[in-house]
């Protein structure tokens, strides 16, 4: 074996370039991603346990976790519900403008978050198109957790739709025909046959949307108002700490957020495996 990266053992291949491409991949991955992330964890370790716990669990930080989690959770739930309806309509029905709507679902991926942020803030402010009608009803969106949730719904939606769509497309029509021929109503067929089949995809979409919301910054920061204990999300708190040159504080929160992200990533990987295995079973 000419090259051996420890774990990356391989069978010899007649195709040239393994050393070059794998070498460059590992090198680039290390300098851009691995070393910086390791730096973050090293920094956290050097703080000492007590300092880390103090910095990552003081009242203001805890309040930001609560807010971030709660708004992300609500946003992901809303997205899962409406995302299912949107995906269902895009896959199953024909209607005017379907292609445009299908394409526009990806808008939150493509639109810079700062632009989404100011657009949403303007819409829901007291003079805005939506805000002027909501405010008289006593619903204040801008600078409240509701605003944060709306921004998180915006950026999380494509994850749900784009995960459910392929799962819906792959459902075998025979299953539904069988269910209907056995006397099930349309609703029973949906509830007992379709929903269980796409459930892993639904859960994956929810998890992706939730994970994205936890780390979001750009679209939220304008509409949130950023009041400590009230509308200050965790990512914003990291930036606040940085601006105050409180590197230890920023590091502690970043590590907590990062660990949660990794757990989510692991969970999503497991879900996706489950989802594709279930799809594989259906091909039988």
């Amino acid at each position, binding site marked *: *074996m000419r090259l051996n990266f420890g774990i990356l053992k391989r*069978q*010899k*291949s*007649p195709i040239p370039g393994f050393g070059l491409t794998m070498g460059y991949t590992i090198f680039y991955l290390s300098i851009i991603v691995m070393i910086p992330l390791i730096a973050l964890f090293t920094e956290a370790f050097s703080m000492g346990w007590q300092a880390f716990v103090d910095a990552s669990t003081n009242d203001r930080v805890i309040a930001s976790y609560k807010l971030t989690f709660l708004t992300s959770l609500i946003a992901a739930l809303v997205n899962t519900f409406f995302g299912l309806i949107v995906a269902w309509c895009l896959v199953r029905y024909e209607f005017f403008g379907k292609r445009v709507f299908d394409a526009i679902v990806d808008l939150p991926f493509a639109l810079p978050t700062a632009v989404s942020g100011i657009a949403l803030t303007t819409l829901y402010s007291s003079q805005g198109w939506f805000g002027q009608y909501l405010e008289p009803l006593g619903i204040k969106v801008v600078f409240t957790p509701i605003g944060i949730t709306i921004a998180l719904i915006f950026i999380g939606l494509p994850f749900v739709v784009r995960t459910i769509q392929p799962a819906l497309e792959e459902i075998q029509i025979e299953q539904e025909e069988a269910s209907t021929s056995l006397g099930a109503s349309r609703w029973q067929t949906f509830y007992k046959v379709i929903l269980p089949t796409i459930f892993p995809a639904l859960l994956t979409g929810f998890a992706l949307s939730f994970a994205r919301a936890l780390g979001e910054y750009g679209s939220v920061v304008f509409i949130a108002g950023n009041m400590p204990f009230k509308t200050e999300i965790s990512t914003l708190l990291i930036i606040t700490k940085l601006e105050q040159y409180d590197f230890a504080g920023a590091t502690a929160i970043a590590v907590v957020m990062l660990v949660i992200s990794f757990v989510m990533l692991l969970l999503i990987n497991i879900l996706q495996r489950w989802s594709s295995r279930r799809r594989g079973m259906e091909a039988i």
Partner: protein
Amino acid sequence: MKIEVKNLTKYFGKFVALDNINLEIIEGELLALLGPSGSGKTTLLRMIAGLETVDDTDKGEILFNNIDVSKKDIGDRDIGFVFQHYALFKHMTVFENIAFGLRVKPKKERLSNEQINKKVTKLLELIQLDGFANRFPWQLSGGQRQRVALARALAVQPKVLLLDEPFGALDAKVRADLRRWLKELQEELGITTVLVTHDQEEALEVADRIVVISKGKIEQIGTPEEVFHNPANEFVINFLGNVNLFHGREEDGRLDIDSSLENEDNNSKFLIRPHELEIVSVNNKDAILQAKIRYIQLAGSQVKIELTHLENETRTVLVEISHYEFREKNIQKGDIVGIRPRALRTFENGAGI
């Protein structure tokens, strides 16, 4: 070019893909590597091509005209390889596919564009696709694609042609035509050719010699006649077509069926091909067993008759006879008849016919 494979053993992890293979491929012959899927036949072909390498953990060597090529780059082996799924370059026309090998040569060896044109045109004629130069692979039928793949391989004037299940993805009619065409072409060019196949009919029809492979080992090497009529062992018999298994004892050139010997060792096993059995009247004294006719298949070149043992209805016997003989004997479904081997040869290791 003469190819020798000496003591070749190939591992994939712990799996032994090839187990001490020794083989000599004679200049100018068409050799078929025949075996079931997973037998190692494709691995052997790919190792000759250099697509699989002799790694440090593997053993043995591959010689081209007495020179070890185990460590040689695959581009320098003078090999033409035809893949099962053609592996045509999707984005290139038929012409460019065939010209590829000529165009990638180093500058000083490269032919002029004019010469390349001439050569490719000639190859297109050879594969009978003259008008197809500007088509793309996806605009061709499977058989046409396979011929383009062959022309592409031949363009660089290889010394050996290696074919990996070349007709595997084609339908029966096209396969039979292409087979004959390939055989004629190979004889005309006189190029040493190795063909991998799992289809015994294909091997029997085109090959000068057949190598039967199973589980990484060579079971038999011989001409089609030898392999078919003098199979070396049970595996070869089974693999080359349908066969009936009887248990019994041989006495004075006569077979005594005795199903109580079923669980005995190999010495009581007899394998007889369907066309080597004859249907006779039920009390014929040469009959080795009595049976009832269960199913008659008239379609095909031979009449295929399925019978069940009279004493044990779960056991079946297959007999093939000519249509003439079938009409002569007026055989009907449900008849009780006797079965007799047309000729009983001597058995080696109790496994042959």
